[in-house]
């Protein structure tokens, strides 16, 4: 029953949720008034993401595909904005496009000698891969279509604060574990990257 108490606790500390009957929705960030995402914006972003993603997996020059990856990440950040999660969008920009993609580009450049533009970049599975992937996409889209197309409009007065309280109360242990995971990555990268003195 403590469980229920915890949930109650979280809900009480949350900022007020805007009445659903009210047609006016307000956002935490500077009170921007917005109804719903414009279809045009979504389709442009979606086209960008899918297009860049396709380039990532098909382009022969791996450096170019790394650049396209950044494009995809930026598009995904836009998608988060359209989903009203601005903090996540910012995180995406900072960590994914900023850190991860740059790290990958570094990796590509450091292993430059190993990739030449003349050799094949795909293994022999690519021909089977296309129909298999198409099949999977078909199945996944069909299953997605069975979901009710709920609108993107439930709005919190102050989403970031709510997420913060969830992180710190409901998911506090996984949150702690993340720190251990990052420590492991740090140690591992160091141990693998550093040349030992004898060698």
């Amino acid at each position, binding site marked *: 029953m403590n469980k229920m108490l915890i949930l109650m606790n979280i809900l009480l500390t949350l900022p007020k949720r805007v009445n659903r009957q009210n047609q006016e929705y307000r956002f935490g960030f500077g009170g921007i008034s917005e109804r719903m995402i414009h279809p045009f914006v979504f389709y442009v972003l979606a086209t960008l993401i899918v297009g860049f993603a396709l380039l990532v997996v098909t382009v022969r020059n791996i450096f170019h595909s790394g650049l396209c990856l950044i494009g995809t990440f930026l598009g995904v950040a836009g998608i988060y904005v359209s989903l009203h999660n601005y903090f996540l969008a910012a995180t995406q920009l900072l960590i994914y496009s900023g850190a991860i993609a740059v790290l990958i580009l570094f990796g590509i450049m450091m292993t430059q000698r190993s990739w030449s533009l003349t050799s094949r970049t795909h293994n022999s599975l690519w021909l089977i891969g296309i129909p298999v992937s198409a099949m999977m996409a078909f199945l996944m889209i069909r299953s997605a279509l069975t979901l009710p197309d709920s609108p993107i409009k439930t709005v919190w007065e102050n989403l970031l604060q709510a997420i913060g309280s969830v992180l710190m109360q409901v*998911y506090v242990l996984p949150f702690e574990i993340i720190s251990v995971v990052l420590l492991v990555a740090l140690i591992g990268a160091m141990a693998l990257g550093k040349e030992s003195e004898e060698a």
Partner: protein
Amino acid sequence: MDLTSLSPEILLLVLSVGILGLDWFLPKKEKYVIGYCAILGLSLIFIVVHFTYGTRLFPEAANVLMSLPDGGSYFQGFVVDALALFFKRLFMVAALLALVYSLAYFSEDAPFQGEYYALILFATLGCFLLVSASDLLAIFVSFELMSLPLYILCSYLKHNSRSSEAGLKYFLMGAVTSALLLYGISLVYGSLGTTDLRHLVSPGPVSLVRLAQDPVLLMGLLFILSALAFKIAAVPFHMWAPDVYEGAPTPVVAFLAVAPKIAVIGLLIRVFLSSMSEAGLFWSWAFAILGALSMTVGNLMALHQQNLKRLLAYSGITQMGYFLVGLSAMASLPPLSVPSLQIAYQAVLFYLVAYLFSELTAFGVVTYLSAKGYETVNSCRGLSSRYPIVSLVFLISLLSLAGIPPMVGFVGKFYLFVAAFSSKLYWLVALGVLNSVVSLFYYLRIAKAMYIEKESQEVKLGKPFIPLETALWVGGFVVVLIGIFPKLVVNLAVSALQRYLVGF
């Protein structure tokens, strides 16, 4: 917030960070002490955990945790109960043996020892958390904590391109696995609106009808299932295993062949105990198909392997097939038939112990051999005349894997097959039994090389390394001991399951 019931994890974390700190302070000549310290610390934790929690000294419910009927506790996202403790003891045994093997495998002045031992302990911590996780997010995070150190450990021999290659292959497969798992979690979340395993049960359990009506949920569960199948290397998700086993350092392989696989099976057991039982038939079929394929393909591929580690990789795939048979039996039972259900759960837990000891002991001998570069079946020729004890232990562990009495593997397999038979999975039992006959073929090939064939090359294993020899002795002894007195482990398994089975 009372964290007492998390103390095994906290102690382990303290130990691994302490090892890193120790590495910092020790002069270069004395780095070899680190390994012994890790072993000592882990043994202490084992003793503490075994004697404190074995007698259920769980605290009363505090702020963030709920108490469970058997004295366990429930954190948000994590459950600490007798079942989790059963698994944690197994992980500690696996880690201990892997540490001992590492001492024998690496030279005393090997670089980066502190990091190495700390990473093994971190991976153990990940396993601990995974079997405790009761929330999809917690599962994902613990899964990563379990996997990341192992990727690094696989490529730990930096100047050995085979090790790096194994590490890269394992890493890429693991990354794809995580992505599959994550995507599956997102779909399950999207369909059910919760990440808590216990909430998946009530109010609307994941029933067959629900699965049929909700393809998103079905897809999500299939993604999760395939991710877990990747991790335990069940056919058709097994491609990585032979390469990784062959290339990675042997003590790491010993750990990797046991701990993560046991953790994933523990996760599956918890998922079943908490939820999904209504959709048992679906799971049962999924497991049955995976299990049948794994047993058969693993066996057939193992038949002509020359490299010992590769052979053990395929045999490991077969062993996972047997587990899947047990899981299939577990899932297929209608919730009402309590005695047979108990048998199915006990069988899986029992076989986990059997697998743990047999596989680790076998890998102990392989570590012994591969530390000096002998890795093929042919290099075992005539081993028995020069190293009678090592070959006897190897023989015992192989026969246990093959399921020959009086080794523990026989009792375990018997248990599993009884469970499968009680669930009316006759074809699976028949296939399993036939497969164990086939598997004898390649296990006997090693035995034949050791005992019957004359030695073709001089195998020199160097002077005996006492900790490793002791570990081998103990491993072989335990394999036979539990085989003769299985009641010891059966009682453990029964008490681990008490909370769940009372509820039925």
